[in-house]
């Protein structure tokens, strides 16, 4: 592995050359940045991966069942497992998806489950990402380039090949295809993940399309190429958020959508990957109920744990939160991303009192979690190695069967005192190795 680590810079140079970048908007300017790669991989033993795999499949299967239920019979609400409030006040619930059964009855085809490992070795799920999660392309291309830079490393270590992601993705798209071509729709060149869109399209043998290449006629979706020739689209892996995909149904000002796409989808004439409306299942408030969903729909004990979470909505939890505010992290469920996340121990006494009042006033809005002291992974800094906080985004693909990609995106924070691993905050990534024996 020394050879690989010594050549880490070379991998970064190759990635720059291949255009492995992500874009961010700073002060209204679009800037492309290299996503810094660290050559020391995260290594998962075969046993450890198999356990994660079982837990992830179970979790995603339950989430898919939940989504079907919410947009149809709503049995889980009638049975009192999930309070109605949490579902219908969630911004992710889209009444426009009501009653639609997606092709293959699959809602979350590609799920990105964010996990952290505590110092005692226990894995915790921090977040489920069921709305077109990104990031798979980075470990894909990193593996390709590290194999090239240091083939000997891979002769010596028995690492499961992760270059099958494209084939897995292609199978998932084929599985739900309603007749026609597979298309990956990108909002455009200036999207943060444009590299990923184009790379996945190339590898998964799908057509890369911009929104204006697509149009609807007679409740069918067509792709029109540069000669004007039209082809019917059977699966649209759209890398555009729900609220922008169809200006006739959602935000009318969207210029990156396809007018009447939802009519085609409602008629059952195209598979949308992932299904619109999934936001109701990866909402911060709904997260609390995922272990309960697993028991409810599958009749199984949850294999993977949630970070210990308390809902201010429940009186008992609320009292616990108010008593332990200084050691908890409080999240406002109506805010997205890193917004509305407060570490109790960083608040003054006065601020704690204010927060407590807000929680008492609007309990539905807040959840609180124990702070998990998750393990550090070493990264290369100059000529030494330093420990940094890191998480793992595992990719779960639901086709004929649900499968976990034997790799994943390990993101780390570049600042010593930071827990924030987001790429937009300057974090970097590592390859994730699963050992084959």
């Amino acid at each position, binding site marked *: 592995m020394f050879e690989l680590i010594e050549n880490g810079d070379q991998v970064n140079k190759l990635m720059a050359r291949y255009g492995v970048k992500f874009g961010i908007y700073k002060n209204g300017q679009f800037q492309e940045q290299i996503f810094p790669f660290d050559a020391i991989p995260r290594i998962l033993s075969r046993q450890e991966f198999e356990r994660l795999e079982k837990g992830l499949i179970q979790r995603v299967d339950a989430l898919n069942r939940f989504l079907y239920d919410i947009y149809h019979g709503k049995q889980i609400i009638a049975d009192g497992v999930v309070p109605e409030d949490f*579902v*219908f006040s969630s911004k992710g*619930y889209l*009444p426009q998806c009501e*009653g639609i059964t997606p092709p293959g009855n699959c809602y979350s085809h590609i799920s990105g489950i964010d996990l952290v490992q505590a110092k005692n070795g226990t894995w915790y799920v921090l977040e489920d990402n069921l709305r077109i999660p990104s990031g798979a392309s980075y470990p894909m291309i990193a593996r390709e380039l590290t194999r090239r830079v240091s083939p000997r490393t891979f002769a010596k270590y028995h690492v499961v090949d992760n270059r099958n992601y494209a084939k897995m993705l292609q199978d998932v798209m084929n599985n739900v295809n309603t007749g026609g071509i597979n298309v990956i729709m990108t909002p455009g060149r200036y999207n943060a993940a444009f590299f990923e869109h184009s790379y996945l399209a190339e590898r998964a043998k799908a057509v890369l399309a911009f929104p204006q290449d697509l149009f*609807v006629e007679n*409740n069918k979706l067509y792709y029109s190429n540069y000669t004007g020739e039209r082809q019917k689209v059977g699966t649209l892996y759209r890398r555009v958020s729900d609220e922008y995909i169809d*200006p006739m149904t959602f935000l009318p000002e969207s210029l990156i959508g396809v007018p*009447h796409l939802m009519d085609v989808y409602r008629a059952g004439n195209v598979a949308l990957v992932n299904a619109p409306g999934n936001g109701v299942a990866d909402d911060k408030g709904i997260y609390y109920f995922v272990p309960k969903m697993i028991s409810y729909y599958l009749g199984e004990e949850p294999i993977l744990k949630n970070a210990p979470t308390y809902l201010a909505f429940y009186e008992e939890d609320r009292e616990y939160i108010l008593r332990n505010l200084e050691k908890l992290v409080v999240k406002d469920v109506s805010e997205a991303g890193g917004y509305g996340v407060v570490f109790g121990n960083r608040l003054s006494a006065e601020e704690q009192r204010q927060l407590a009042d807000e929680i008492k006033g609007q309990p539905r809005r807040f959840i609180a979690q124990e702070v998990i002291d998750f393990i550090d992974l070493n990264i290369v800094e100059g000529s030494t190695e330093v420990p940094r906080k890191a998480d793992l985004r595992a990719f779960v693909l639901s086709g004929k069967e649900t499968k976990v990609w034997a790799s994943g995106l390990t993101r780390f924070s570049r600042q010593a005192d930071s827990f924030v691993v987001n790429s937009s905050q300057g974090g970097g990534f590592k390859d994730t190795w699963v050992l084959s024996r």
Partner: protein
Amino acid sequence: MRKLHFTYKTNLVFGGEVTRHCFTLRCIPADDSIQKICSYELKLDPAEYYQINRDCFGNRTCIGRCNAPHRTFSFAVEGIAFVHTANRQPEALHPIFRYPSEYTRVDPALESFYRSVRPKTGDPLSRACALMEAIGDVMSYTPGITDVSTTAAGAFALRQGVCQDYAHLLIALCRLDGIPARYAAGMIHGEGLTHGWTEIYDGSCWIGLDPTHSKMADDHLIKLCHGRDYADCAVVRGIFYGNFQQEQSVRVVVEDCSEW
């Protein structure tokens, strides 16, 4: 029961030639337990293709497109409807009509107004009627003060508005009171523009209330569509290429041709 002859005409005039024009119209009334549409004719000009679909609320939609350059766009629906309010049948409730929506989210002023007029007792219908009267007492009907983007809270602050604002206010107050409520858009007996009113769920049926006229919906209304609020019920929604002003004229005529 009334037999109503209806005509709904809209004419759009653009300041120049527009292209790639996509539209969704909610101008065709659908059958339900209180209205039967026994015949209708739809005319569209220009349209390269169009077809009739349903949206998530069960409303009839007409979707279509016109790519070729055009300066005007018009559609007209004409037909006969039998309306019989007394025949309403029980329906399942979708829970979304219990929750605030964009146009009906309350502000502190509207919330304190609700507290001051909250009915003490009564079934959902009598409570909703009391709330409707309370709206009638404080609002005055004034066209041109509010527009299609005005929320319930916005209209309440002005104490003025049109049918859309009255309907949103009643929806907001009913939902605060725990009564599921939705927006209805349609046509009213006589000659004029699109009308908007409120429907409340009494535990088994949807019942129309017309807060603009402070009365229960009767057999002189033909519903085109319903939804959480006006945002779900625009009779015409479209996008096109071309940066021009547009002028829209709507003419609705409903005549009672009951032979009894």
